[in-house]
């Protein structure tokens, strides 16, 4: 309805940056300057840690490629992460960065890795755990976050079953990682042990599912073209957070109609019982502005409650982005009393505080 039609014209995107190679390091320096009481940036080892390390608790470490800010560095703080390890834009942090971060994070109660499911991240985190285990006897556990329904082999008609057997990469990890970090963070802060925190994280990751769409792809710093281009009357459905194309293109439509294309498959896959409750995350992918996000949030609320379900908690904002991508993702996490209590527990980080 609002779509200017016709062949998509070219978008030029410039970056507010110095040398693109320094972008991530300079931004982390700026982040730490903005939050001196919460964070410090260890430039030598390439990680962000709490300004005041918490003693005697399970430590939470997450990380991944940059370009998804505020994820993960701005979730370091009381009640959430202990250390965040950023790679270059859209590139995994290195095994050594992760190893040093893991050693630094450990307060004697072990370290939980929260890892979004991408091959590079998985390999590097795994190596870091092996190094920390063998060289330093640090106890570690991992929670793999793989919430992106668009890459679920079970629902993707394009998947060749033979390839799935061939050790396919599985679902991508996206915005559900925020819920995993929040809930595990609360449990760790409350003194739970490593196995308990890990089991909780797996419970959250196992339940949460997400779907995303984009009206415009993001543009890599230093480049001038977005990762993919769309006609003015097309929307990319099932996009990832690294400029990956989606599963399909659908015609441009109203916010209510587009939102239902995200929510309906989520509700179908979750098979929630009527009367149940969810945490809903309506997440902007970069340049989606708050008016747009809140219109989508209203639509999500209507769609969920129309099924006789409750939106017990609602997180609306740009938390897991893809540079300046214009789009939205919806995450639904079925919750029980325990998860809600942990969700509600105090948190104090640059991007999430309550």
């Amino acid at each position, binding site marked *: 309805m609002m779509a200017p039609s016709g062949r998509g014209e070219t978008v030029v995107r410039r970056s507010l940056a110095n040398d693109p190679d320094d972008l991530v390091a300079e931004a982390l320096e700026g982040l730490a300057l903005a939050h001196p009481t919460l964070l410090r940036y260890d430039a030598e080892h390439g990680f962000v840690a709490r300004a005041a390390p918490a003693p005697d608790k399970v430590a939470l470490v997450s990380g991944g490629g940059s370009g998804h800010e505020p994820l993960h560095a701005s979730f370091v703080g009381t009640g959430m992460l202990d250390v965040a390890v950023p*790679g*270059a834009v859209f*590139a*995994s942090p*290195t*095994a*050594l*960065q992760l*190893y040093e971060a893991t050693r630094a994070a450990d307060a004697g109660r072990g370290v939980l890795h929260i890892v979004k499911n991408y*091959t*590079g991240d998985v*390999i*590097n985190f*795994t*190596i870091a755990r092996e*190094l920390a285990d063998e060289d330093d006897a640090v106890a570690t556990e991992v929670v793999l976050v793989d919430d992106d329904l668009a890459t679920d082999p079970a629902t993707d008609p394009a998947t060749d079953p033979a390839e799935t057997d061939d*050790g396919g990469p599985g679902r991508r990890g996206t915005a559900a990682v925020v819920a995993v970090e929040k809930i595990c963070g609360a449990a760790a802060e409350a003194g739970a042990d490593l196995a308990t925190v890990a089991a909780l994280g797996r419970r959250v990751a196992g339940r949460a599912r997400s779907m995303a769409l984009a009206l415009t792809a993001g543009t890599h710093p230093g480049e001038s073209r977005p990762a993919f281009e769309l006609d003015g009357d097309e929307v990319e459905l099932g996009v990832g957070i690294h400029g990956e194309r989606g599963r399909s293109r659908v015609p441009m439509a109203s916010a209510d109609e587009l939102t239902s294309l995200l929510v309906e498959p989520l509700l179908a896959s979750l098979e929630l019982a009527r009367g149940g409750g969810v945490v809903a995350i309506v997440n902007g992918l970069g340049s989606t502005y708050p008016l747009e996000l809140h219109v989508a949030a209203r639509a999500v609320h209507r769609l969920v409650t129309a099924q006789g379900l409750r939106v017990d908690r609602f997180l609306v904002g740009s938390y897991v982005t893809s540079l300046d991508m214009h789009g939205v993702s919806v995450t639904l996490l079925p919750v029980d009393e325990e998860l809600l209590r942990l969700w509600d527990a105090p948190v104090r980080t640059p991007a999430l505080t309550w």
Partner: protein
Amino acid sequence: MNASDTTAGDELAPGFGRTWTESMIATFAVEAARLGELDRLSGDGDFGRNLTSAYARVEQEVATARPRTYREWLTCVSRGFLGTGGTSGPLFGMFFRELARCAQGDEPTPAELGAGLAAGLAVVQRYGQAEVGHKTMVDALSPAADALAVPGATLRDAAAAAARGAESTSSIIARRGRASYVGEASRGVLDPGAVAVALIVQLAADAAG
């Protein structure tokens, strides 16, 4: 530790770890561009830069750690790769970590080196899930490890096997890594990771004296 411990044939020259490491630093400074070009043809083009930054880190590690033994030298190589991105960074990092750990004494025996190569292959396969024929570094590593497992074989035999393995990647299409996305376009292009492995084993043979 003495010659009677070895099952492989040749003896290693003293200072083997140092010689090998320094020759890798020197050689890849020259060869990185050519290998990067191969990655550009069949992958995403960053392999040359990944190698360059890995060996730059190796030099830093050497400057800081001041290695003495083979194990210490190879640990510097391992850390250089583990501090580097891409798929090759962590895979080579763990590969060299196994090689570093193979030696009981100040320098490895040929047998220890053979066992190290086998352990290195195993760790690469564990992480990368690639088999021979998938057009990856495994296509050079696996024949090299096999060659060295033969009683009496030398590092020169392993280097020759690795080179033949690297050659073999030209005629096949990639099933792992970025190159697997380009399908037929990867046919006719050598796999840069396999070529790098062949070079690494050749430099080991040279360093063994």
